[in-house]
């Protein structure tokens, strides 16, 4: 299980993020077998898009390799940061990765001007799909600049050269500037299912306005029907995931389907799991 983590903040209170992994026992997912001894990828060089962070990361197997798509973080002056999506490859089963190049794999464009992040890479049929978010505006919120972003998609024959769909896949539900993140897509029961998270654009550090997990389905990966009521999970009454639930990732192991997600304070203490009851319909 890949995840992202942060050393303590520097003297100015700023963080850098790294990505790492934990090996879980395949029969008992709550039994930790090992953790990464070092980040899977060092930070980028001076002036590059991932100089100050590699977070989050999504991996996929190819013939001989494991490929990682990740968001790289840089620091800006008028807004706190910008992000772009990079790609790295591992030839040792996913322990260490090397960048395909020093720049991003998916460029900014007229309709996706900044804050491209949260990549999830998938292959359906012979086509590669990258689900991600792209910023549409920076808003001043309570004295801070906060990005508004939406879920987008690109397709590729090889995972390297991408064609953007150039449209928002999921309409906002709770407010016009709703933030959406972590679009995780899988196929089951003849349909495509997307889990993602969403929150209000302001006051989102509170329980009421913080991240929740949303759901949408599609038959063609292009047109999506949002139906959050069917996501099947909400915050708990109390405990590690009572304040918020976010950054969903769905995976299947030995016939069982699991949802990995973050809880309070966007994963400060770790991540949790839920198991699917029954089948997807």
């Amino acid at each position, binding site marked *: 299980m890949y995840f992202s983590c942060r050393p303590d903040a520097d003297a100015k209170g700023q963080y850098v993020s790294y990505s790492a992994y934990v090996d879980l026992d395949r029969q008992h997912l709550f039994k930790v077998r090992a953790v990464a001894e070092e980040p899977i990828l060092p930070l980028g060089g001076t*002036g590059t*898009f991932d100089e100050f962070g590699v977070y989050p990361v999504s991996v996929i197997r190819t013939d001989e390799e494991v490929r990682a798509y990740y968001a790289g973080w840089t620091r800006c*002056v008028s807004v706190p940061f910008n992000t772009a999506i990079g*790609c790295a490859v591992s030839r040792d089963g996913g322990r260490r990765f090397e960048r*395909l190049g020093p*720049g991003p794999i998916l460029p*900014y*464009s007229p309709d996706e001007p900044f804050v491209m992040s949260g990549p999830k890479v998938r292959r359906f049929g012979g086509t590669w799909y990258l689900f991600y978010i792209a910023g549409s*505006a920076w808003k001043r919120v309570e004295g801070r*600049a906060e990005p508004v972003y939406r879920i987008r998609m690109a397709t590729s024959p090889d995972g390297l050269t991408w064609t953007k769909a150039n449209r928002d896949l999921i309409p906002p539900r709770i407010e016009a500037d709703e933030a959406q993140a972590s679009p995780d897509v899988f196929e089951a029961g003849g349909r495509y299912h997307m889990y993602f998270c969403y929150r209000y654009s302001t006051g989102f550090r509170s329980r009421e306005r913080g991240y929740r997990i949303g759901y949408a389905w599609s038959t063609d990966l292009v047109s999506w029907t949002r139906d959050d009521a069917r996501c099947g999970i909400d915050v708990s009454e109390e405990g590690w995931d009572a304040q918020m639930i976010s950054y969903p990732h769905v995976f299947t192991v030995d016939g069982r389907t699991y949802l990995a997600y973050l809880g309070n304070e966007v994963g400060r203490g770790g991540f949790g799991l839920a198991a699917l009851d029954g089948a997807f319909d």
Partner: protein
Amino acid sequence: MRWTKLGLVFDLRAHPLPFGSGGFAQSPQALVLDDRVRIFFSTRSREPDGLYLSHVAFVDMRKDLSAVLGVAHRPVIAAGDLGTFDEHGIFPMNVLRHDGVVYGYTTGWSRRVSVPVETGIGLAVSRDEGLSFERHGAGPVLSATLNEPFLVADGFVRVIDGLFHMWYIFGTAWSAAGAGAAPERVYKIGHATSADGIAWTKEEGRRIVADRLGPEEAQALPCVFDSGTRRHMLFCYREPVGFRTDPGRGYRIGHAWSDDLVDWTRDDAVLPLAGTPGEWDADMQCYPHVFTCEGTTYLLYNGNAFGRFGFGAARLDP
């Protein structure tokens, strides 16, 4: 190729702009109108924090560049929104007539923390002969990619046989910041093509013009024109450090030629355009732009101090 110098044809001290800080007319680029030549350039304002911000303006000149007819009363394109690639200025802008409108390929600047800036190339469109431009989207049409990791800038666009060609520069290195000194950048000339001028395919890291000063040479502002049966490219080049203050390390104008738009042969000696001692271009020559008007080919360029006082011109001898 012989050029006759026409001198400092636009002197800001004689024709001050009604906005900005009163300094800089950088990277002049021409749009030929029926009765005049509209020459766009970037001028600067000074921010409260002391930093410069570049705006695109223009001067209208007689078609033989012999007189100034007027200057822009305001920037032709508004400042970019919070967090956008061109929030902290546009420098330069290349203009191109296409399909009844004017395309402006802008280089947008935004400030960074570990290095001074990042740049990208945007598209803005004018429907009033260049008096005003509107952005085609908030983001760039050309920006950093896998093997062109930062500082994509200085787009120059031509349509040749129905295909859009862009020559531009991309960064190859930011030096580590020294004690009390900001990191310095190295950039090289690249090439991309497009069917519509909006969606571009890069050659992705291919450096199309050979270095003359070694691998640290910085190459900037390519422009391509035809002369005889060949394509010619002018650009400027400099040493990576010391270029602001040491005339021996500052910008000079370089030259390359091609017969196929793929392979370029560098041959700076083709262009004998040295600075004139004691004159406005004695220490530096930079930001070349070639255009043709009523059968005559002109070169616009900046001189000392990157164009602080205006721009000059030269005329290609027949």
